[in-house]
C-alpha cells in the first residue's frame, strides 16, 4: 500500500475509528465476556458501582428523590449559566436586566421560570429526601457521616436559594434580604440584652460580612451574586461528590440485610454471579479482607442499563415537572427595590416562611437559636441512635409506625394549639408591656414548641426504652411543626403579619 493510499483509507475509516475509540468496545455487548469488557471500559460504570441491588431501584423505597435532586441541580446549573449571559449585577442595571430577560430575551422568560421552579423543586426534594433517609433508618452505621454531608448539602441548597432571591433587585428581593441580613445581625438582641455589645458584637460582624456595608446596596448585591454563581455551587458540587462517593463506599443504598436476598439477575435470567471467595489484601497494602469479600452479589442486577434507566427516568421526570410548571406559572417580578417602602406583608420564599413565623416572636431565637438547635439535633441523631436494627425498613417496623402516627398527632396538635393561643391572646409583651427583652428571648412560642417536642421525645424514650423511637418521635414532631409554621407564614399571615383566614380578607392599602 502506498503512503497516499494508506492516507486515503485512514481518512475514509476515520469516523468509524473515532466512534470505536470513544466507546472503547466499539459496540453494544452481546456476550458475558463483552459485558464484562464494557464494565471495565465504561465511564458510566467508573462513576457507578457495577452491580446494583434490586431493592435500591425500587421506587417505593427511595421515590428517586436523590436522583431528582441531582437532576434539578443539573437543570439549575444549565439555566443559571444561560441567565448569566444577560444578567447584570449592579443596582442600576439588575432590575432592568431581569426585566429584559423576562420580556425581551428570546425564551428568556421560560428559562427564568425553569430556573425558579427547579429551585423550588430542589428545596422540596431536599426535605423529602432527608425524611426518606431518616424514616428508613439509613443514617445508621456506616452511613453516619454521609448524613452529616447531607445536612451540609441542605444548608448549601437553602443558601443558594436565599442568595438567588436578591438578584432580581425587586421589592420582594430587597425586603426579604433586608430581613435576612438583620437575622444575621440578631445575636445583637442577646448581646444588647446582657449589655456586652460594645465589646462583643458577632451580629454586626456577620451582617457586615454578608452585606459589605450596613445597608443592602451594591456591595451586598455583588456579594450575593458571587456566592450564588461561584462559591455555593462549587461547594455544593464538591460536597455532592463526597456524598455520592460515600453512598458507594458505605455499601450502596441501605437495605434490610437480615432478609434473604433474591438471586442475582442479568436481563430476565437468574444467574449465579461470580462471588469472590478468596481473601486478598486491600491494594496490596493491608492484611485482611476487602470490604466486599464474602458477600455474594445476591439480589443485584447490572447497573448498566438498569440503574441508567432509573437515572434517566428521574431526569425526565424533573424536566417534565419543571417544564410544565414553567409553562403555566411565571416567576414573579415586582416593582424595583425601594428602600423607603417595604412590601406589606414582606414574605420570604415559602421554605423560609416557617422561620419568618418564628422570627415574628423573637428575631434571635427564631432566626438563629432554634435553627441552630434543630441542625445540631439533626446532626447528632446518628451518633445518639446507634441501634443497628431496623435499617432499610420504613419506620423500622410496626412499633415505629405507631410512634410516627402518635408523634404526628402530638406535633400537629401542640403547634396548632400554641399558634391559636398566640393569635388570640398574644404573648408576654401583650400582658406585661415593660417586660425585659431577655425574658422574651428565652420564653416565646418558638422556644416553647422546642421544649414541648423535646419533652414528648423524652417521654417516648422513657415509655419505650428505645432511642430510635424517641428520635423518630422528635423528627416527626419537628416535621409537623415545620409544615404547620410554613403554612401559617405562607397562607394565614397578611399585612402587618396579622392573622387572616384568607388573603381575600386582607385590608386594601
Amino acid at each position, binding site marked *: 500500500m502506498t503512503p497516499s493510499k494508506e492516507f486515503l483509507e485512514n481518512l475514509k475509516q476515520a469516523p468509524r475509528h473515532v466512534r470505536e475509540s470513544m466507546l472503547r468496545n466499539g459496540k453494544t455487548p452481546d456476550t458475558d465476556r463483552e459485558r464484562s469488557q464494557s464494565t471495565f471500559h465504561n465511564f458510566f460504570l467508573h462513576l457507578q458501582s457495577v452491580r446494583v441491588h434490586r431493592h435500591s431501584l425500587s421506587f417505593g423505597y427511595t421515590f428517586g428523590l436523590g436522583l431528582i435532586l441531582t437532576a434539578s441541580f443539573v437543570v439549575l446549573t444549565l439555566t443559571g449559566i444561560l441567565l448569566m449571559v444577560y444578567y447584570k449585577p449592579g443596582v442600576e442595571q439588575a432590575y432592568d436586566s431581569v426585566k429584559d430577560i423576562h420580556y425581551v430575551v428570546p425564551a428568556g422568560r421560560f428559562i427564568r421560570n425553569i430556573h425558579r421552579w427547579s429551585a423550588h423543586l430542589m428545596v422540596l426534594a431536599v426535605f423529602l429526601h432527608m425524611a426518606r433517609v431518616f424514616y428508613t433508618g439509613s443514617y445508621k452505621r456506616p452511613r453516619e457521616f454521609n448524613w452529616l454531608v447531607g445536612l451540609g448539602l441542605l444548608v448549601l441548597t437553602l443558601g443558594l436559594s436565599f442568595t438567588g432571591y436578591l438578584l432580581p433587585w425587586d421589592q420582594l428581593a430587597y425586603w426579604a434580604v433586608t430581613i435576612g441580613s*438583620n437575622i444575621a445581625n440578631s445575636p445583637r438582641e442577646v448581646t*444588647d440584652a446582657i449589655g456586652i455589645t460594645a465589646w462583643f458584637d458577632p451580629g454586626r460582624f456577620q451582617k*457586615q460580612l454578608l452585606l*459589605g456595608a450596613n445597608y443592602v*446596596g451594591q456591595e451586598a448585591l455583588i456579594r450575593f451574586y458571587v456566592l450564588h454563581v461561584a462559591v455555593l455551587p462549587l461547594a455544593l458540587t464538591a460536597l455532592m461528590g463526597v456524598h455520592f462517593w460515600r453512598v458507594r463506599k458505605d455499601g450502596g443504598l441501605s437495605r434490610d440485610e437480615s432478609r434473604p436476598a433474591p438471586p442475582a439477575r442479568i436481563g430476565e435470567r437468574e444467574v449465579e454471579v461470580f462471588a469472590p471467595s478468596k481473601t486478598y489484601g486491600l491494594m496490596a497494602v493491608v492484611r485482611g479482607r476487602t470490604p466486599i469479600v464474602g458477600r455474594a452479589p445476591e439480589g443485584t442486577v447490572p447497573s448498566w442499563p438498569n440503574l441508567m434507566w432509573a437515572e434517566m427516568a428521574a431526569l425526565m421526570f424533573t424536566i417534565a415537572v419543571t417544564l410544565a410548571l414553567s409553562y403555566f406559572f411565571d416567576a414573579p417580578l415586582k416593582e424595583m427595590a425601594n428602600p423607603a417602602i*417595604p412590601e406589606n406583608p414582606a414574605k420570604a420564599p415559602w421554605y423560609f416562611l416557617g422561620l419568618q413565623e418564628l422570627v415574628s416572636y*423573637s428575631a434571635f431565637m427564631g432566626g438563629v437559636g432554634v435553627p441552630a438547635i434543630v441542625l445540631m439535633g439533626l446532626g447528632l441523631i446518628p451518633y445518639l441512635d446507634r441501634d443497628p436494627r431496623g435499617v432499610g425498613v420504613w419506620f423500622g417496623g410496626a412499633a415505629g409506625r405507631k410512634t410516627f402516627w402518635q408523634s404526628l398527632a402530638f406535633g400537629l396538635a401542640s403547634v396548632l394549639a400554641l399558634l391559636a393561643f398566640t393569635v388570640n391572646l*398574644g404573648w408576654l409583651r*401583650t400582658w406585661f408591656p415593660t417586660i425585659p427583652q431577655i425574658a422574651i428571648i428565652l420564653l416565646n412560642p418558638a422556644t416553647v414548641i422546642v421544649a414541648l417536642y423535646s419533652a414528648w421525645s423524652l417521654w417516648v424514650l422513657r415509655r419505650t426504652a428505645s432511642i430510635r423511637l424517641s428520635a423518630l418521635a422528635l423528627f416527626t414532631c419537628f416535621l409537623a411543626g415545620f409544615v404547620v409554621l410554613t403554612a401559617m407564614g405562607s397562607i394565614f399571615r397578611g*399585612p402587618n403579619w396579622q392573622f387572616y383566614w384568607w388573603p381575600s380578607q386582607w385590608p386594601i392599602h
Partner: protein
Amino acid sequence: MPDSPKRRDFLGLAALWSAVAAMGTALAGVMRLPKPAVLPGPLRVFKLGDPSQFAVGSITRNEAGGFYLFREEQGFHAISSTCTHLGCVVAHNEGEGFACPCHGSRFSTDGSVVGGPAPAALPWLEIVVSPDGQLQVNAESQVPKGTRFRV
C-alpha cells in the same frame, strides 16, 4: 536518652506543623479580605430647610432619611422609622404610634415598644441647626428619648 524522639521524626513533625501554620496564616490573611474596612453608604445627614416652615403639631416623614420629624410646643424631635426588629420601615399613625408591616411590632408615640417582637425602642435622632440656618437631622447619631430641640 531512649525516650527522646528521633531526629528524623522531630524534623518531619516540625515541617508538617510549620506547613499547617503557614497555610493557616495565609488563609486568615485571605479571609480578612471580605470584612470591609470602609463601610460604603450614603451620607446620613439631612437638611430639612428653615425651622419656621414646620408648624407646631406637624409631623413630617423623611423617606430618604428614614425618620419622622415632629414639631411640638416643646420643640423638635426626630424618631427613626427603621424597625429595631429586622429593619423594615414602620408607618406612623397619628395618635396611635408606629406599626411595622413585616412582623407586627408596635411602638407608642414616643417610640417605646408596646407589642410585637421588636427588642428595643425606636431611637431618637440628633437635631442641630446647620451653619446656613437649616434644620439638620444626623440620622447616625442618637439622643436620649425625650430630648427636644429648641430653635
